[in-house]
């Protein structure tokens, strides 16, 4: 029997999240790795999502299953699970593929648990080995990767890491909207009180040309002044990874990463930043990444053009001098 793959798209306030197309690409590649099958898309939302169908109608999909309900206007896990659990139980897709985002990973584990499915989060690659398909995912905050096997029968719920399956690889075709068979009723499980912008909007790093970003590896806030000096001679804005913010060493509006700002400077200088995946998704748009870290195995080096393995306390002042000298 041919297998079925459901790609669950993500939208918020009527806008399709960019990783939705990556979920389609991943579902198509999973289908290929399993010897073919039917790939459908699922889109949940309020009335303002009808126009989004057009954005995915040009991909190779069996159908675009849309569920529109005012109870889905705003995301809540209860509302999404109410619809999807019944549909997955009845439709028994082989795979449900979702983007690995803060909205989706909020409900995806429960979707797996409530449908007795296996849950495979943060997929970054597929590998055939000895006739078996293995799944690659990051572990230990991205320092290592594991290859895992999925045992047993039944649906597998997969989330795909941002950037792992490029939207450009999604196969083109045509698809039309259909009603999701056996969709359950949305059952919101919380009272939404509001949304707030964290740390206000004092600092906009998204348009910065040069960013000096600091991570936990700077050790203590007393080490910031020479780094600020370097940022000054480079004409750079100062950013930070999450641990620096959580420790209160810099204000939250300096945070770069999935829960902070997304940046795309031409030069990104990462100082003592280990390179956890949540940070990398916020800065992968940078043209040239330079990392300085005492740990040669820090994952940040994998996404850097240049690296120096060394002590920040020595390298940073030397770099400030070198930049000054070069600009004279």
């Amino acid at each position, binding site marked *: 029997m041919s297998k079925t793959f459901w790609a669950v798209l993500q939208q918020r306030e009527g806008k399709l999240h960019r990783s939705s197309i990556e979920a389609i690409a991943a579902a198509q590649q999973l289908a290929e790795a399993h010897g073919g099958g039917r790939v459908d898309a699922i889109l949940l939302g309020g009335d303002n999502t009808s126009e989004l169908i057009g954005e995915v109608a040009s991909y190779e999909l069996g159908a675009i299953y849309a569920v529109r309900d005012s109870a889905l206007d705003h995301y809540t*896990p*209860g509302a999404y699970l109410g619809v999807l659990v019944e549909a997955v139980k009845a439709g028994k897709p082989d795979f449900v593929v979702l983007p690995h*985002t*803060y*909205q989706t*990973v*909020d*409900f*995806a*584990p*429960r979707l*797996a*648990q409530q449908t007795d499915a296996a849950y495979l*989060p943060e997929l970054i690659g597929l590998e055939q080995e000895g006739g078996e398909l*293995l799944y690659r995912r*990051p*572990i*230990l905050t991205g*320092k*290592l*990767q*594991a*290859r*895992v096997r*999925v*045992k047993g029968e*039944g649906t597998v719920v997969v989330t795909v890491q941002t950037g792992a399956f490029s939207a450009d690889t999604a196969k083109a075709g045509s698809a039309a909207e259909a009603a999701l068979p056996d969709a359950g009723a949305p059952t919101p499980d*919380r*009272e*939404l009180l509001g*949304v*707030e*912008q*964290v740390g206000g909007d004092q600092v906009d790093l998204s348009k910065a040309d040069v960013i000096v970003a600091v991570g936990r590896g700077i050790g203590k806030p007393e080490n910031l002044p020479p780094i600020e000096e370097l940022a000054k001679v480079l004409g750079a804005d100062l950013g930070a990874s*999450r641990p620096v*913010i*959580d420790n209160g060493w810099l204000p*939250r509006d300096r945070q770069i990463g*999935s*829960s902070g700002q997304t940046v795309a400077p*031409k*030069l990104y200088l990462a100082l003592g930043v280990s390179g956890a995946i949540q940070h990398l998704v916020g800065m992968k748009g940078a*043209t*040239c990444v*330079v990392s300085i870290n005492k740990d040669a*195995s820090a*994952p940040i*080096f*994998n*996404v850097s*053009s*240049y690296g*120096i393995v060394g*002590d920040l306390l020595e390298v940073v002042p*030397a*770099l400030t*001098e*070198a*930049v000054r000298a*070069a600009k004279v």
Partner: protein
Amino acid sequence: MKIAVCIKQVPDTEARLRVAKDGRWLDEDDLKYRTNESDEHAIEEALQIAAATGGEVIVITLGPDRAKESLRKALALDAARAVHLVDESFQDGDAAATARALAAVIEQEGVDLVLTGSQTDDVGYGATASMLAGRLGWPHAWLVMGLEVEEGGSTAKVTREMESGMNEIFRLQLPAVIEVQAGINHPRYPTLRGIMKAKRKPMATPTPADLGLDASEVGLAGSRLEIVDVAFPDTGAGAQLIEGDAAAAAAALVEKLQKEARVL
């Protein structure tokens, strides 16, 4: 309020990591361990709520014998007692199998609130707690940066992180499973008196049978995911490393940024 905190002892990822000879996991010989960072914040949050509402904090972990160190630390911080799922059959499970075991403990204890961290720094499934909530039929909240128990403990006001620097604020019915982020609070340090007292606090070690579970439902036997091997990522396309002492490396880097990358 009776609050359960689910914690995990994980390898210290700041320390040097090596892959074991058989490639299946880390070389554990000189591996350093710590309590998972966001779990430490969950303990602190639980202690604050228990102090404000009057009640006790129970810490629960699933892990090998060494994991009792993390429980002792939590007991030294003022948790009342601990539950350690140390039985061999509980180990090496995926999120679903671990959630099954934890749910059985929670049901036996009859708690008003479960707190835990949002994700572990080892396998990082980020799923166990919300699956636990699913099993219990309770609401859950993930990536929580603010928690306020309201109205004598029947509801809670929760602030949760969304992407792009946005927070969402909502109200939940309790009991619920709340998964906090590091940054929600500043964990306290144990006192000498606390450390001494912790040695006499009870630590239960129930077996699957004690929890009404079959050994085949938990641990690796009850899992659909199995780690085949682990490795450092391929760094083939990684950075061009610049050698030399600080001054020489800095000068070479600036030259490359000007002439090769043309970004200065």
